[in-house]
Each structure stands twice: as structure tokens, then as C-alpha cells.
């Protein structure tokens, strides 16, 4: 009486996961039982068809991912193109100003100028580099879709005060949803609730979003002119991670 193979074993064979004695037994049955062989060949054909379909589906998914990635790259490159220009101009005009001031005014005035410039530049750096999180937000609960789209609209309209409680409500159902954590942090940052914003960004543990959260945490410190904490975080952003290049630029300018 030949050994019966369950669908699970057959699947393992098709997925090339069968090993050792089990594989030997399977192969010897293939060699001795023509009907069995025929059945497995049919299933192997089905297996290839399923793999082809899986590939096709993944290809269309990759096309979608490609659009997303290229879109955010474009955004990033225009940002870096525009920002340094604006900054340099400002520095130049301030320098020109300070030369005039040095001649015309006393040293005290110059010190005053320098301190104003210092403060301006932190806020300025923040304003030049900061952009609210703009990726799509996905929630698992299908019932929450209208709720989330309303909140996103409020968020896009910069009505952070109104969007915040809705996002927080959604986070209760999905406490580890990093996209939600990010937008909540942004709302808090926009509302100058710095402590809460830092807490939120620090609580992101999902490895895929950690670098973005770190970036926004640095932005939170920058907005408060806490350059020490900002630079520590910017320094820790590694090549290939979110906003690496921008982090390097800011570090240089600081």
C-alpha cells in the first residue's frame, strides 16, 4: 500500500521545501507511480500559473510604488535646489547690512544684529526645510475610512487643531500605526506643542518609519532653537535614510 501524501506535503514539494527522507519518499513514489506523477505534474503546472499571477500582481504593485518613490524624490530635489539659494541670499544681505552697520553704528548695534541673525537663522532653517508629512495614510479598519479621509482633509487645510483629535481617536484602535503617529506629531509640532510632539515622534518604533520620525524630531528641536539636540539627531541620520542630504546641509549651516 503506497504512502499517501497530504496536500501540505505536496505543496512543500512544489515550493521546494521538502527535504531529506520525506523528499526521497516523495521522489521514489513519483518514479514508481505513473498516475501520481501525472497528478503532481498537473499541480506543478498550476503552481507555475499561480506564481506567474503572483508576479503579475507584484509587478503592478511595483509600478504603483515606483510612482510614489519618484514623486517624493522629485519633491526632495526641488526642495534642495530652492533652499540653499534663498539662504545664501539672506546671509549675503545680512552681511552687507552688518558692514554698513559696523561703519555707521557702535559695536553694540553689531552685537544686536548678530543675535537677531542667529535667532532668525534657526527659525529660517526650520522654515526652509520643514514640510508636513504628506504620504498616504492607511488604516486597517475599513470602517474608519471616512473618518480618516475627513481628518486628512483637515490636515491638508492646515486645520491641525481639528484634525488632531480625530487622528488620536484612530490611533486608539491601532496604537502601532506609524503613519498615524507621524501626522499626530506634525499636528502637535504645528500647534507648537513641542513636548507632546517630541514624545510622539520618539514613540515611533516601526523600523520603516523611524528615520522619518527622527527627522521630524530634529525639526521639533530646530523650531525651538534647541540646536544641540537637533544636531545630535541630524548627525545620527545615516546615508540612505530619509532626508540624509538635508540633514547634512542643515548641519553645515548650523
Amino acid at each position, binding site marked *: 500500500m503506497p504512502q499517501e501524501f497530504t*496536500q*501540505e506535503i505536496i*505543496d512543500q514539494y*512544489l*515550493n*521546494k*521545501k521538502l527535504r531529506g527522507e520525506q523528499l526521497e519518499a516523495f521522489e521514489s513514489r513519483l518514479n514508481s507511480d505513473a498516475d501520481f506523477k*501525472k497528478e503532481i*505534474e*498537473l*499541480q*506543478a*503546472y*498550476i*503552481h*507555475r*500559473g*499561480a*506564481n*506567474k*499571477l*503572483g*508576479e*503579475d*500582481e*507584484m*509587478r503592478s*504593485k*511595483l*509600478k504603483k*510604488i*515606483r510612482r*510614489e*518613490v519618484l514623486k*517624493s524624490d522629485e519633491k526632495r530635489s526641488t526642495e534642495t535646489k530652492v533652499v540653499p539659494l534663498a539662504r545664501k541670499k539672506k546671509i549675503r544681505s545680512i552681511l552687507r547690512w552688518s558692514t554698513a552697520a559696523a561703519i555707521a553704528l557702535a559695536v553694540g548695534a553689531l552685537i544686536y544684529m548678530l543675535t537677531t541673525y542667529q535667532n532668525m537663522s534657526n527659525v529660517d532653517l526650520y522654515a526652509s526645510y520643514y514640510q508636513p508629512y504628506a504620504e498616504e495614510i*492607511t488604516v*486597517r479598519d475599513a470602517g474608519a475610512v471616512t473618518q480618516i479621509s475627513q481628518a486628512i482633509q483637515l490636515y491638508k487645510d492646515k486645520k491641525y487643531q481639528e484634525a488632531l483629535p480625530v487622528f488620536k481617536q484612530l490611533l486608539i484602535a491601532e496604537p502601532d500605526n506609524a503613519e498615524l503617529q507621524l501626522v499626530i506629531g506634525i499636528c502637535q509640532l504645528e500647534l507648537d506643542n513641542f513636548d507632546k510632539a517630541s514624545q510622539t515622534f520618539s514613540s515611533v518604533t516601526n*523600523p*520603516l518609519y523611524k528615520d522619518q520620525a527622527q527627522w521630524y524630531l530634529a525639526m521639533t528641536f530646530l523650531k525651538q532653537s534647541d540646536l544641540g539636540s537637533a544636531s545630535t539627531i541630524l548627525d545620527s541620520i545615516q546615508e*540612505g535614510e530619509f532626508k540624509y542630504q538635508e540633514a547634512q546641509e542643515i548641519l553645515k549651516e548650523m
Partner: protein
Amino acid sequence: MLRKKDGELLEILRGPDELSRDRALTEVYRRAYSMIERMILNNNGSVADAEDIFHDGLISFYKQVQNGLQLTCAIKTYLYSVCRNLWLKRLRKTGRSDRLEDMHNEIVELDNNPEAFLVVDECASLLTTYLKKLGEDCRKIIVYAYFDQYKADEIAKLMNYATPQVARNKKSSCLKRFREMVLSRGETDSSLKQCLETYL
């Protein structure tokens, strides 16, 4: 060196959470694409070629991950080597060139043929049209089981079934239905008939 984050990405790609998997794929895309595009543009290729090869490379990589791939280098270095291999083969096949100038100095020796993880035959394509006729649930289960290689408990979770046994039963009945559909259509659809004769 394998970065810590790369190990985490591999884990996510292996796991049955589709949302996280798509995010991991996005992350890999972001990290590796530009390097591979540069290599292809500098070696007689177009942006369209780069997209094509990169997507093939990513799918081959994904399949290898499901087969238990262990990495000793960064994901992007591995992907570069996979895509380099695929592009070199295409260059040779189309007679455009038989060598390739590298843009990246970290190439790893592959111990497999990345093309072998991709399905290219017409007969398999033909079968996909029939698989789609099987209905949403069955189509999903069969792809989960064979392409993503998810186990019964993982499929149960993805499909919201109470137990792994429900997933097993469902998969068996889907396969049975599909098997019958293929055999009966094989009698009227001449190309399917030909495919069946070649395979069986």
C-alpha cells in the same frame, strides 16, 4: 556588512503582513533603484529597461527571500548584483554587448541564477486568465500559498478564517475546483490543451 535595518526588512518581507510588506518594498525601492538605473543607463540601456530589470530583480529577490535567502551583504548590494546579472544576460541575448561596466564596487557572487525564480513561459501566463475566473478568495489563497508561500496559519489570518484548518480545507477545495476547470477547459481551449500535453 548587513545593516540592522536590512535584517528587519527581510523579516517583514518574509512575514504575512501585506501592508508592511508593501512598505518594506517601497523602502528597498528607495534605497536601491537609482544605483541600478545608473548602471543600466551607462550600459546601453534606457530608463524603461532600468524599470523592467529592477522590477524583475525585485521579484526574483522576493522569491529568494521566501525560499529562505540568507544575506551577508546589504540588500541594495545584493539587488545590484541580481540586476547586473539580469541585464548582462539581456545584453548578450540581444547582441548589444557581452560585457558590462560597473558603477558600484560592491558586487557579490550569486550562488544561484536569479532568472530561475521568475516564471516566463506562455503556458503559465495562459493559466493566470483561468485562475482569475476562480473567484477572488480562491485566487488569493492559491497565490498566497504558492507565490508568497504563506503557511496555513498565516493564510487563515490574512483571510480572516477562524483556524488554520479552515484555510487548509479552503485551499484544497480551491485547488480541486481549479484542477477540474483546467482539465475540462483543456478539451475546448486548444492552446491550453497543447500546454497540458507539454506538461503532463
